[in-house]
């Protein structure tokens, strides 16, 4: 039986030790292989045997690491669904798994419908006949739950925004179709109005997507790495931040001797804060592993706090570390402002580290800490603040639909005057379908009603 490739996060949402993304279909091994960097480069995924477990990283198109994962391969027909199945074990919490899933979805894999893995398992004969009714119950229950969640997500103010998007898109579609089906009553398409609608749509969609991302940050949190040379005050900063936050979520002891993690809460944003070991050239093998680990932590972080010691000045060690921060979101924290003899002038720092946010502080004396929290909040929510009238959370399906709608609307806007109307109409259907998925409606059916409502038809 030939089906398309599907993927979904298969572990329940919430904090857990690991989260699993499951994929099924004839193309999934190849698709995962494309974004999997095996720890042992000699062992690419398609070459691995069935039921093998593979260590490595999921990387994005720029080869940036998303998460360190264990990937298991189960080939057809000996798998849960009877098709080729890949399971990606990500780090716990939902963020890592979601990011990996998004990466897979960008490679042409479809998000699984509720209960779809089980459905396939049954259809391929992996589950016996007596389980048919159980499978039906699973599909029913999961669909209802998904529907309920989607609807409750979109209640109140938000539903008005979605409604507004639907409405504009239906209007646009009705304009195109009326011009095509009733040319003598309606005349040519009003390209100016169509352009305006598309522009407005793009703006509203942008706003919604930003609001969704902001909601995602509040729900999923961000990773912040503290880095700097030894004795710059990293542990003190970590402790200070923890002290400020009374509601510590969990307390995970350092997984290696070099990285200490803690979950804290800054201005309502869950932050996983990681204290790294110093990074310097070393011959010591144990220390070398620590350094590599630290670099990886910095790479994985959404934001880095780069600490400089005002007492010692800027050293070669600081510059070595800076190489890893150049293209990152980072805050430079000039610590030990309380010292009498300072060897760093903030003006010099501004010159050397152009474009970075710089804060002068004394962690010991609790100075500059509010400013640091401000800076963290601002940088994490950067560009997502103008949508503060919206408080919205999207599930993966909705997010994907929104992104699809936005890209279609953008394409439509670019091609508006150069593509003939019949093709344009087909592209508008695509956007309509995507937006319909957000609230689970078939909007196309409303278009014909709209033609008769908005246009005087009937010659």
């Amino acid at each position: 039986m030939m089906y398309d490739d599907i993927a979904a996060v298969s572990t329940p949402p919430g904090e857990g030790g690991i989260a699993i993304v499951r994929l099924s279909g004839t193309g999934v091994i190849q698709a995962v292989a494309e974004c999997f960097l095996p720890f042992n480069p000699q062992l690419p995924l398609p070459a691995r045997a069935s039921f093998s477990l593979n260590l490595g990283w999921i990387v994005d198109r720029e080869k940036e690491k998303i998460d360190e994962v264990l990937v298991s391969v189960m080939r057809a027909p000996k798998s849960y669904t009877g098709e080729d199945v890949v399971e990606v074990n990500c780090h716990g919490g939902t963020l890592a798994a979601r990011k990996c899933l998004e990466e897979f979805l960008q490679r042409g894999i479809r998000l699984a419908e509720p209960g779809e893995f089980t459905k396939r398992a049954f259809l391929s004969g992996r589950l016996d006949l007596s389980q048919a009714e159980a499978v039906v119950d699973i599909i029913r229950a999961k669909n209802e739950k998904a529907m309920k969640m989607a609807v409750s997500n979109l209640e109140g103010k938000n539903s008005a925004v979605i409604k507004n998007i639907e409405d504009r898109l239906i209007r646009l579609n009705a304009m195109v179709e009326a011009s095509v089906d009733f040319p003598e009553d309606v005349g040519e398409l009003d390209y100016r109005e169509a352009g305006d609608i598309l522009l407005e749509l793009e703006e509203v969609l942008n706003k919604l997507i930003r609001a969704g991302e902001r909601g995602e940050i509040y729900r999923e949190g961000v990773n912040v790495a503290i880095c700097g040379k030894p004795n710059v005050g990293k542990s003190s900063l970590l402790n200070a931040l923890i002290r400020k936050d009374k509601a510590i979520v969990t307390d995970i002891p350092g997984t290696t001797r070099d990285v200490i993690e803690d979950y804290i809460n800054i201005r309502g944003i869950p932050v996983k804060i990681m204290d790294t070991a110093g990074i310097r050239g070393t011959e010591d093998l144990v220390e070398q592993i620590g350094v590599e680990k630290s670099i990886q932590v910095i790479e994985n972080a959404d934001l880095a706090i780069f600490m400089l010691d005002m007492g010692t000045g800027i050293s070669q060690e600081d510059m070595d570390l800076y190489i890893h921060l150049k293209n990152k979101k980072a805050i430079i924290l000039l610590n030990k402002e309380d010292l009498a003899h300072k060897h760093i002038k903030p003006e010099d720092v501004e010159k050397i580290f152009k474009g970075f946010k710089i804060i002068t502080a004394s962690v010991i004396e609790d100075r500059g800490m509010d400013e640091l929290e401000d800076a963290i909040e601002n940088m994490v929510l950067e560009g997502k603040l103008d949508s503060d009238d919206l408080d919205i959370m999207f599930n993966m399906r909705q997010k994907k639909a929104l992104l699809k709608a936005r890209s279609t609307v953008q394409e439509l806007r670019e091609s508006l005057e150069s593509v003939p109307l019949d093709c344009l109409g087909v592209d508008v259907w695509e956007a309509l379908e995507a937006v319909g998925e957000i609230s689970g409606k078939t909007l196309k059916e409303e278009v014909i009603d709209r033609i008769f409502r908005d246009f005087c038809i009937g010659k």
Partner: protein
Amino acid sequence: MLYDAGKYDVAVIGAGHAGCEAALAAARMGCRTILFTLSLDNVALMPCNPSVGGPAKAQLVREIDALGGEMALNIDKANIQVRTINTGKGPAVQALRAQADKREYQHEMLQTLLKQKNLDLLMAEVEEIEAPDRKVQAVITKTGARYECGALVVTTGTYLKGRIIIGEVMYDGGPGNQFPATKLSAALEKAGLRLGRFKTGTPPRIDQKSVDFSKMIEQPGDEKTLRFSHISPENGRPQLSCWLTHSTRETHQIVMDNLDRAPMFTGVIKGRGPRYCPSFEDKVVRYAHKDSHQLFIEPEGRETDEMYVQGLNTSLPEDVQIRVLRSIPGLENVHITRTGYAIEYDYVFPSQLKLSLEARAVEGLFTAGQINGTSGYEEAAAQGLIAGINAVLKVQGKEPFILKRSQSYIGVLIDDLVNKEADEPYRLLTSRAEYRLLLRQDNADLRLTELGRDVGLVDDYRYNRFQEKKKTLEEAREKLKKTTFTPADQTMSGLLEQKKSAALKDRLSLWEILRRPEMKIRDFVVAGWLEDPGPEILEQLEIQAKYEGYIKKQEDQVARFNKLEDKKIREDLDYDQVYGLSNEARQKLKEVRPVSVGQASRISGVNPADINVLLINLEKMRRN
């Protein structure tokens, strides 16, 4: 007294656009066929607008032609003007539309029917249907003649219990004051079909002598001769013009002042009318902000002075109609020859039909055309053709002929009829066809002629012409793909420069160069790179090259669509034994009895979870 009047394979009741196609198809496929009509003087009557074609409808007419039907050939013989509309909006929505010569259209069709081998015509009213054991056996006419038949196609249009309404005046009647069919409704109900009631209307006709055309805008036909049929000869006759005028504030005031006499508003008319064809009084009320509506004055034929007032269909009282018309520029002294009216009629809820158009309740009973709740001559003809074909296949004990939505507008039309609940007469629109970039009027023959040949409706002449065309097309396409040019080629560089097209960077084929919007295939012929294969093939090649990307995209969509279409469901599936369906879905599935999971997914009230549940249950049954 009943008497035994004979035995036929297929009987058709009604000789309108559906009935003519059904009867011709059945006879041409070799069945002994009889066609009953209330009046032999009125076969293929166009009781409303004098035109054929337009968006979605032109595609239908071309499809009928590609399958070996008659409508395209007939309108090519009997038109007074043909135009292409929607030029510049893309090939998928471009559509031919012909103004018909109504009398000539009827005359030509009658001649075709009379000459057809295996076909008998009879002027008679059928009043009863014999269907013991839920299987059609015979029909009985008003005069007591009993005709046995293997299959029956009912195409009664708006004649079933037809009722004419003009203001306060009401009487029983068919369109254009024909006799209505008074008894057949009861016969259909007795056979087990449920009937509903729809309404439609038509404008007044006027005398050309009383019209002042100097106050109107002339609308001539296209210069070149355009034809619907792939095999019609040129008719080459001069084209007649239509005329454009408009209603005025005064017109609208007259309507508003007389709403208390308008049956649409007084509650006299209960049947639902079509929104795409509203009465003039409806338009005035609903679009109160508009001071004026377009009106087209169209000749009804070459040999008549009667003209049709397109846009003014109305059931206002006769005296109001006269005043309304005379308030329109150019019609100040107009004389009405026929009064506009509304008509109510019985129709069969089409959800009772299979995709073959056979009623589920009665084996061998097919319905087609307006009786199925559609509107339009083209929609009727398309259904008639399919019903005719399937009546024959039924008699021959063969599988029904069903076109998919991805193959044809005919498929979209019938699939919508059966699966979607409509509360107004159904009209086909290009926006109803999700794969419309593939379903163009220009490629109807490429899509369907082979299928028409397989069922035995496409004759040798048509088929040979088609084969030739296909061969020429493929050869020309090969030529375009194989002929390549380097940037060094002088002639090509010159042409590109002349067309303001970018110079070549690499070696490109003519096919690839043709994709550029500014390039025209004609230029390649002029340059001598391609032998002229005729305008039809040039157009086809140009569309195929320029829209390749979009066409590919739609073809991929069709491949996905077909996965569920190919999952068949047994007709006698006991939906009460399907575990886990929602109540609404169960109800609907029991009613429509879809033949595939794809069809099930399009039934109103069946949601995606129900489809998954259905798939699981089907698998379970398969294994049991």
